[in-house]
């Protein structure tokens, strides 16, 4: 029997970035088990894996087909997101080394788990089928659960992991139930084939409930209000380097799958579905920003900010247009760079046992570490959405998409909540520049600093010349 019916060269090429990273993760696992004290080697194997995978992803960019009987998308969108995840992973890997060494808990498994979760993200970003989305989410999440509890002797890390795990698994139940109902009403889990059955299938209430449940599952993953409450606890308790990775890569992956899945039902421009997503977006922007106001711990503040930013990005989903989806994609790039940088600075200044994380601890930083203070200010400006940083362009994009889809009220709300958010973002700047302080700081590592500087350069370049990404986006959608 001819096996080419099941498997072709095109499938191999299409999945090459994922396969490559998977292979390297296995090699790393082998190295880790066979060689003693091999953290450094494992780290470099993982970096090599990411680089090779990046190369394959770039190579695939021009392609435009599907693999494994439409289970996997190849090229364009999938490649773009794969590249995004891989770059974020690379940043996160380099940020982690000094952090783990400082905390004196340095194991090779950490890096393996990071790239395993990246595999999950890449599956999500190139999913052509609800099963692929489910698998991707699970691969990513299971690795995240472990990473959140990585400091296994610390109670806060344990607690963070358990909360994340139980709520994550709970959300998976909803997502899966939704998938089951969609499958039951259309007879397929493939997104393309589901879309082919529209608009009749869309009239079935069971089908709609299915999408509603999938929406809930995704809302948990992207941290949209009211399914957001795990976020602050998990972000605060997890190791800072993991939080940096979760809040950027994890969020980007969730949104990449969100876009893929919901481009199908959103194509119907159903006012009720739009309204529900718009309300999720509005609630996230309001709650995230308001609760962010009263935080004193920077990690927790950034957690609430992450909820708020999920709200901004949901505007793009609610708009249901290509403009909105491009906006989300751009936003994810800028948000990823910004948050990695911000968490990078926080990880660098953190002292043992999670000390040195409050606003007060940053007083007078401008005098003791002017470069770090300037960088952190830039990240805060970008999160606020002040030109000429990348955050501004992203917000502009998303608000424009809202106006285009007659959701002007959402854009107005977005602007107002952004104004609110300036209070807590710029408060840290005020502390750094206008308050006296300055305790002993932990020694700063060069690698972390270089990474943070790179993300700083990234947001400025993207803020001034956004067309670098915009032109790519145009060709993707």
């Amino acid at each position: 029997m001819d096996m080419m019916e099941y498997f072709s060269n095109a499938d191999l090429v299409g999945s090459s970035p994922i396969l490559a990273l998977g292979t390297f993760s296995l090699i790393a696992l082998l190295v880790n088990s066979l060689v003693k004290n091999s953290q450094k080697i494992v780290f470099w194997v993982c970096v090599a894996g990411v680089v090779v995978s990046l190369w394959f992803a770039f190579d695939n960019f021009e392609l435009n087909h599907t693999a494994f009987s439409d289970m996997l998308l190849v090229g364009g969108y999938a490649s773009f997101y794969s590249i995004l995840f891989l770059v974020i992973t690379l940043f996160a890997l380099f940020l982690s080394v000094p952090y783990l060494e400082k905390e004196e808990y340095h194991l090779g498994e950490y890096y393996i788990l990071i790239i395993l979760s990246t595999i999950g993200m890449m599956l999500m970003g190139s999913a052509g089928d609800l099963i692929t989305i489910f698998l991707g989410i699970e691969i990513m999440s299971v690795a995240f659960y472990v990473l959140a509890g990585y400091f296994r002797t610390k109670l806060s890390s344990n607690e963070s992991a358990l909360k994340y795990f139980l709520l994550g698994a709970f959300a998976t139940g909803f997502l899966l139930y939704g998938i089951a109902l969609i499958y039951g009403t259309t007879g397929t889990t493939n997104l393309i084939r589901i879309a082919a059955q529209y608009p009749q299938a869309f009239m079935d209430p069971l089908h709609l409930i299915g999408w509603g449940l999938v929406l809930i599952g995704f809302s948990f993953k992207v941290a949209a209000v009211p399914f957001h409450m795990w976020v602050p606890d998990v972000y605060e308790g997890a190791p800072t380097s993991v939080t940096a990775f979760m809040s950027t890569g994890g969020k980007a992956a969730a949104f990449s799958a969100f876009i893929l899945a919901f481009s199908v039902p959103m194509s119907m421009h159903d006012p009720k579905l739009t309204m529900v997503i718009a309300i999720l977006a509005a609630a996230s922007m309001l709650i995230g920003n308001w609760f962010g106001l009263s935080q004193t711990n920077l990690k927790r503040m950034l957690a609430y900010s992450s909820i708020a930013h999920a709200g901004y990005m949901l505007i793009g989903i609610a708009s249901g247009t290509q403009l909105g989806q491009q906006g989300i994609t751009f936003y994810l790039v800028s948000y990823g760079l910004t948050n990695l940088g911000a968490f990078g600075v926080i990880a660098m200044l953190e002292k043992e046992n999670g000390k040195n994380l409050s606003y007060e601890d940053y007083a007078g930083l401008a005098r003791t570490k002017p470069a770090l203070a300037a960088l952190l200010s830039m990240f805060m400006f970008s999160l606020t959405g002040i030109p000429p940083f990348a955050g501004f362009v992203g917000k502009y994009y998303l608000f424009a998409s809202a106006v285009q889809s007659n959701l002007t009220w959402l854009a107005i709300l977005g602007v107002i909540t952004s104004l609110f958010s300036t209070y807590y973002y710029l408060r840290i700047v005020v502390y750094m520049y206008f308050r006296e302080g300055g305790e002993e700081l932990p020694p700063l590592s060069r690698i972390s600093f270089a990474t943070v500087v790179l993300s700083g350069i990234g947001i400025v370049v993207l803020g001034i010349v956004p067309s670098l990404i915009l032109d790519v986006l145009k060709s993707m959608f």
Partner: protein
Amino acid sequence: MTGKNACPTKSNFMIPLNHYLLLSAFLFSCGVLGVVVRRNAIVVFMCIELMLNAVNLSLIAFSSYLGDATGQMLVFFVMVVAAAEAAVGLAIIISLFRNKQTVNVDELNILKW
């Protein structure tokens, strides 16, 4: 697999799809309720497993009624994923127990506000 063999012969003896779905929904709700009211982390997790298995039931039912194998395939994946989650979950609970000597989820409150 064409699915023809997997499809039971449609006869008068078939249990209507709705009954499966209702049972599945009932089990799912039981799971959700359990997650909300139980305090032991392991029991909470078992209730989540119950939710997943409720979904498996409806998937199998759909698969059988549609005569399509995709649903069964998904069930395999769900089971494997559930097993992996169980392993990780158990590990997390154990490490928590080692530090805190309890698995009561109400006592997890150093992270709040």
